[in-house]
């Protein structure tokens, strides 16, 4: 039942998202911030470090993913310590 509700809600959301043909789905920084900034004569400039070129962004995401993954893995037990109750129950089951 719950699965059916999720599927129905998702389908409805996707229908609205994909069916809105006139929408450009631009971010509010374009639709709002840039619009008012341009009207006031201060359009945004190209970022000082522009990674939005070719595959550079992909490379940055790769490096960030690798770094984040290693750090997350290194600190995993600090973040998610073992459940002592479950651990005791498991040891109790395996004890001869």
């Amino acid at each position, binding site marked *: 039942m719950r*699965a059916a509700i999720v599927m129905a809600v998702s389908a409805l959301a996707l229908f609205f998202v994909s069916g809105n043909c006139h929408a450009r789905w*631009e971010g509010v920084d374009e639709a709002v*911030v840039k619009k008012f*900034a341009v009207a006031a004569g201060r359009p945004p400039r190209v970022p000082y470090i522009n990674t939005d070129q070719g595959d550079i962004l992909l490379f940055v995401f790769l490096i960030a993913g690798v770094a984040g993954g290693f750090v997350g893995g290194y600190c995993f037990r600090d973040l998610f310590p073992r459940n002592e109750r479950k651990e005791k129950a498991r040891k109790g089951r395996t004890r001869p």
Partner: protein
Amino acid sequence: MKTARWRNAVSASCAAALLLLPGQAHAMHISEGILPAGWAAFWFLVAAPFLFLGMRKLRVRSEREPRFKALAGLFGSAVFVLSCMPIPVPIAGTCSHPCGTGIAAILIGPGVTVVVASTALLLQALFLAHGGLTTLGANIVSMGVVGAYLGAGAFLLARKVQVPWFIAAFLAGLVSDWGTYATTSFELSAALARDGSMGSLFLPILAAFAPTQVPLGIFEGFLAVGAYRLIRTRKPGLMDLSTEEGTA
């Protein structure tokens, strides 16, 4: 069997949603070059004491409990992901993102949230062409400072008047999101207004944000309830740690 079917349905829905999402989208961060130098410097000055206070708090709490630094890092990555995750809003036909600072503030405290939000914003400005280096101070004030302190304040106030935890968490997410965008409107109107017309520019900017941000703020409220409930039920250990000086 039932769980597997449920998991499959959720996975299929998420995969379909991801495939159909538009490729390019940006959000509330004020882009490079929009703020005049004076205003950019002013917002850096406003952000600095909060950042200093947050870093001090992070150091003190990490000395007392070494695990806290890892927890703050975890919430930092959540804020980073949420604050560059474009979500299409069908009513408005535009995309925007939640901030994540409300839920972070009630779990790790608003001071430390300012630090993690600043780190997320700096990384986005440096590597993702999202926001800007000169506008970093203004973005820290709107998303980090106002988002975190308003979210934590709303949660504390709601708990003080005996409101159930899920409504309090919802309010934290909602208020932090709307507060962030209201502050962005204020920053923009203050910097872009000519000959003292700030008041007349503030309301149109706020009104332009509203169709996207009103539903997204409600979404962020539900997101905060979900995250809070998940940690409360599945990882209460994290919550014990975070409640030491946090607000939860």
